[in-house]
């Protein structure tokens, strides 16, 4: 059972959340071309290690959260609001 520390609601069990996939993918510019969009829609890094991902707190505040979680140990390094997560991912990347 994951315990996810929602910035709005505090630590809650994973059953309150809905997983929403890889948060490292970015929508390309409209004129980026087909290859960029195929990569955006389908290709995933799928790392064995730290993974940046979206979780929706569906059974709580209904906010979308950005979580950095390890895909083997399931350890969660941080949970941020979507906006904060975006800034930190822009500046430093998921590491």
């Amino acid at each position, binding site marked *: 059972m994951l315990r996810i520390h929602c910035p709005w609601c505090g630590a809650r069990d994973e059953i309150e959340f809905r997983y929403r*996939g890889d948060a490292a993918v970015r929508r390309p510019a409209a004129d980026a071309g087909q290859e960029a969009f195929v990569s955006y829609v389908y290709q995933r890094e799928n790392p064995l290690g730290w993974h940046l991902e979206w979780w929706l707190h569906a059974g709580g505040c209904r906010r979308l959260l950005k979580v950095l979680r390890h895909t083997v140990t399931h350890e969660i390094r941080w949970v941020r609001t979507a906006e904060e997560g975006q800034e930190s991912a822009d500046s430093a990347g998921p590491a």
Partner: protein
Amino acid sequence: MPSPPRVFPQATARARRSSGRYSLWRLLRAGLTGQRGWSQAWTKATPRPHYRVVIVGGGGHGLATAHYLATGHGITDVAVLERGAIGLGNVGRNTTIIRSNYFQPANIRFYEFSLKLWERLEHTLNFNMMVSQRGTLNLFHTEAQRDLFTRRANLMRLAGADAEALSREAVVKRVPLVDLDNGRFPVLGGFLQARGGTVRHDAVAWGYARAASEAGVDIVEHCEVTGLRQAGGRITGVETTHGFIGADTVCLAVAGHSSVLARMAGMELPLETHVLQAFVSEPLKPLINVVLTYGAGHFYINQSDKGGLVFGGAIDGYNTYGQRGTLPMVEEVTAAAVTLLPALARVKVLRQWGGVMDMTMDGSPIISRTPLEGLILNGGWCYGGFKAIPAGGFTTAHLIAHGQPHPLAAHLDLGRFAAGRTVDERGIGPAPWLH
């Protein structure tokens, strides 16, 4: 994590020993001499410096590919590299179900071909795999679901597979434990594929390993691939914990870890890795004589010949390489079990485990060439790789031998995502955690 190199026993292709033909006569004869005189089923090979084909992954699909390469295409200069021991990966972790009740016509044809291979596989491989065509019974609980299942059954019959509708009465006659009138999801009926069933999964790995080894394939256990070497846009071999092994063609058959291996060639794949759990109960008297699936949740159950109820549900639902499950899905699966079969409420679960799998963006597998010349991918099996082992190995061997996809698996190429012809079995779209 690379495992330390191991010292292998002195066994090479030249020293290969046959395990002989298995028969009732031999079993009886061995019974008179205390069951001595059985030799190792497959040779524990030491890798040579170069092979025509190196298959990474000694699971069901890797071993089946090696077998069909050797026996169907005369290519015996083949090594199967397995980082652990044969039979300890997903081939030995699944819930052993075989069936061909798919929706997409191309998928029905592929899985029906697999089912036909299963039907004669024990004779082909001279190995008792306990292939049991006890039937797979899918229950439906709403009228809309009945219509959907009817359409699927019609598509299956058009493609040459078998499917028949069962009334509520026929369902409860077949499985008296089913609670037809449970308050939330009353059972309206079911669809039976009588030719579906179960196979002893360990024996599948052992049978293919033995047959491939007899045909001249080197099966190398405890040999982990740590890198893929390429030159001029072509694969030239694999780096392993036993050093470099050259190869003209390398086939990845490592579902669950396909992304990890593909990254060694600088590629990203259209899939995510997720964990699926399975459960076995204490042994019981015969209770359930089909593979039964619950239509109001993701739950399937059958009874092994030892009496244990073997059951499972959906994937846990978030990316993980951890070969273990988490508790919310344990609760969901057991709740579904008790809703459908209330008599199981007091049954003890003996074991629970998890296997990690490639969940693709359309829920269908990948048997394909890759942008790197000479690198073949067999993966993306989602949670349905076991039933596909014979057809997967057969068509992958064809692709390696001819350089062109087998017609039955041509729709499973990597290019389908960019070309917009995904094979979305359940119509979910590119959200692997929902498939």
